[in-house]
């Protein structure tokens, strides 16, 4: 581990020499662990459903749970989380229910966004989870919007925005960092450097020494952290959020991690990267490491782990079974949700649709 990369627990789950473990109570540590494991198991289950043709698409986060959940844990409930598309774990930690998540995957009648988005494009206004915005990098400037709105109205809220290493090559990234620097926006830019942007490796994504160093050009803070160390991620994010809340401006966090699985269910990484590379990173797995840490600290045991696995499995099966039984949203919802008042051309289409449906019934 380089001196400039923040880290607290090593790959064997031991506290690194000289590192200070943040003060987190046992219950919260277990909550973190549970969220990470849930994230992993949900991904596995849902990818299987996709292969069986039961959902159309899926985006997993295997290998990145430490970065995603550690950072979300550092934020307060009043702060906004602005996801990329791989941060279901952050949403779960916030309290976004597995039921809501699964209903969205199936796009069924209970789906809160009524089948209007691809699977894994969830949102929850109540939980301050912005809508997943998958055009790469487009969510990054949104964080300035949330952050600066809070700042101008005197609310002590911070926006945490997630994106991948690939997104740093988009103009939106530069625009957002620049504005955040100039206006001291209360924003945390969280870059999951998972080494790949679909099939494009990190080596050809930038000529900069690191992603974090880019912060310097915009006059904001930049830090690198071991993204597979949930505690270190928590620590640097908490510090960044604290600075933002105090009016000291934005931070760019580069969490060094690895996308263990395919980019999405439509991708096949065997076409562009070696199994050896994956194997190396699997040894640094964030969940295995954190489990070892918990056991080492006397907070956890194999028996408890087994019980938890059983619980999670049951929870996931229940959610899937229920979600799959529900039909699609009412057809008329197709015309709703965009305009507050339905304009004439949509009303006409709706009327025509109703007429057609009526005549088919006859």
């Amino acid at each position, binding site marked *: 581990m380089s001196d400039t990369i923040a880290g607290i627990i090593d790959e064997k789950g031991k506290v690194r020499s000289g590192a200070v473990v943040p003060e987190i109570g046992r219950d919260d540590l277990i909550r973190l662990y549970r969220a990470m494991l849930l994230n992993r198991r949900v991904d596995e289950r849902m990818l*299987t459903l*996709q*292969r*069986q*043709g*039961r*959902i*159309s*698409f899926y985006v997993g986060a295997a290998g990145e749970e430490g970065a995603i959940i550690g950072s979300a844990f550092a934020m307060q409930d009043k702060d906004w989380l602005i996801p990329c598309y791989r941060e279901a774990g952050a949403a779960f930690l916030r309290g976004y229910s597995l039921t809501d998540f699964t209903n969205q995957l199936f796009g069924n009648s209970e789906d809160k966004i009524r089948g209007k988005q691809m699977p894994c494009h969830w949102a929850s206004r109540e939980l301050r989870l912005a809508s997943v915005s998958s055009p790469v990098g487009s969510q990054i400037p949104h964080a300035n919007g949330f952050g600066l709105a809070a700042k101008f109205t005197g609310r002590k809220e911070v926006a945490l925005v997630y994106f991948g290493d690939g997104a740093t090559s988009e103009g939106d990234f530069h625009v957002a960092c620049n504005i955040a620097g100039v206006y001291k926006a209360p924003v945390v830019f969280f870059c999951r450097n998972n080494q790949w942007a679909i099939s494009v490796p990190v080596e050809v994504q930038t000529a900069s020494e690191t992603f974090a160093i880019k912060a310097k050009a915009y006059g904001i803070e930049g830090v690198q952290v071991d993204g597979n160390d949930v505690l270190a991620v928590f620590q640097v994010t908490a510090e960044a959020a604290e600075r933002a809340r105090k009016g000291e401006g934005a931070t760019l966090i580069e969490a060094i991690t690895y996308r263990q699985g*395919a980019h999405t*269910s*439509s*991708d*096949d990484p*065997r*076409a562009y990267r070696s199994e050896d590379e994956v194997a190396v990173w699997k040894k640094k797995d964030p969940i295995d490491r954190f489990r070892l840490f918990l056991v080492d600290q006397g907070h956890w045991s194999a028996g408890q782990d087994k019980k938890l696995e059983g619980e999670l499995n049951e929870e996931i099966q229940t959610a899937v079974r229920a979600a*799959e039984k529900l039909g699609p949203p009412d057809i008329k919802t197709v015309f709703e949700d965009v305009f507050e008042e339905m304009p004439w*051309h949509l009303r*006409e*289409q709706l009327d*025509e649709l109703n*007429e*057609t449906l009526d*005549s088919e019934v006859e």
Partner: protein
Amino acid sequence: MAYEFKLPDIGEGVVEGEIVHWLVATGDTVDEDQPMVEVMTDKATVEIPSPVKGTVTKTVGGEGDIIAVGATLVVIDVGEMGSADIPEPKYAKGAGGPADESRKAGAPAKKAGGGGGALATPAVRNVARTRGIDLSKVTGSGPGGRITKDDLDQFVKTDAVAAAVGQAEPEASIERIPYRGLRRKIGAHLSLSKRSAVHYTYVEEVDVTSLVELRDSLRVRGYDHLNYLPFVLKAVVAGLKKFPLVNSTLDEEKEEILLKKVYHLGIATATEQGLLVPVVRDVDKKSLLQLSSDIERLIAGARDGKSKLEDLKGSTFTVTSLGRMGGLVATPVINYPEVAILGVHRIEKRPVVRENAVVIRDMMNLSLSADHRVVDGWVAAEFIHYVMRFLESPGLLLLSGEE
């Protein structure tokens, strides 16, 4: 109960998949989520897990076979399990589903004007309504059979009655034949050519009166198998030697043009299965009689389906001759990755002007398609004119190679 597992859309908008490897066989028991088969799509190769537990009673297709999304892949006996317990994959409907249906529907509409089942935007519907067009009678050319405004214009132009009859053609009057095997290979090869090469065609008329006389006199002397093609090949080789760019290929990746120092000429040959191109090797080193017997052997082989693989490979330039049918002009498609192809048309007597008088001569047209990336129009013209010299004065062939 027999549960039919259909190939789902495992990418975003995938329509078919190739079976790479079966992981189960008839008679095997499978658990829920147990991988059954590896399937490759244009996006990824993935293992497909079973959604149910049971015994495999049938697997459809062998390794290498292409299966359409929505087609049954595996049948599993799930025993006592009722259909309520079985998940119903929603994404295993033929991706072309809606489009196919609308094409098949024939007479989709139930209502005039509004055109119930017909696909059209409100603007188009409005136009149809004001012009009194029944949308159900209009064939849509847009995505998924959507009717566009152009389609309405077209509909009004063509005889509406005829259009309606044409559209209502019952399935029984159509014979569907599979687009497979050689047909599909020809299609793929020629589309690649059209996509890659910048085609243009250059046409010239050649006076072959002397060639006809020469051949006739040889025939009289017992060489009755000899036709014109060996002469054409010889003339072409003379041209290729003079204009090496015409006997080349373009390696786009390495950004190099490869000039071929061998003269293997493909002969486009119509067979019952479709077009084949047997290759006459080393045309420059062979006599007219050798060429004649090579051509005869290769064409017969292709027609009888007995071509050896090496007979069909390695051409550096191709000649396509339609024989007596011959036509006047063609725009031949280059036998990619070659850069040019010569179409040879029928010989016929035509009135032409010689020394201010109309005379009757044996005339023949040549259509050369070339890839403009490598062969500019000027080069093509020079090449053809050079080739023409040998066809006009076949005696020159005796000298070729000595210039």
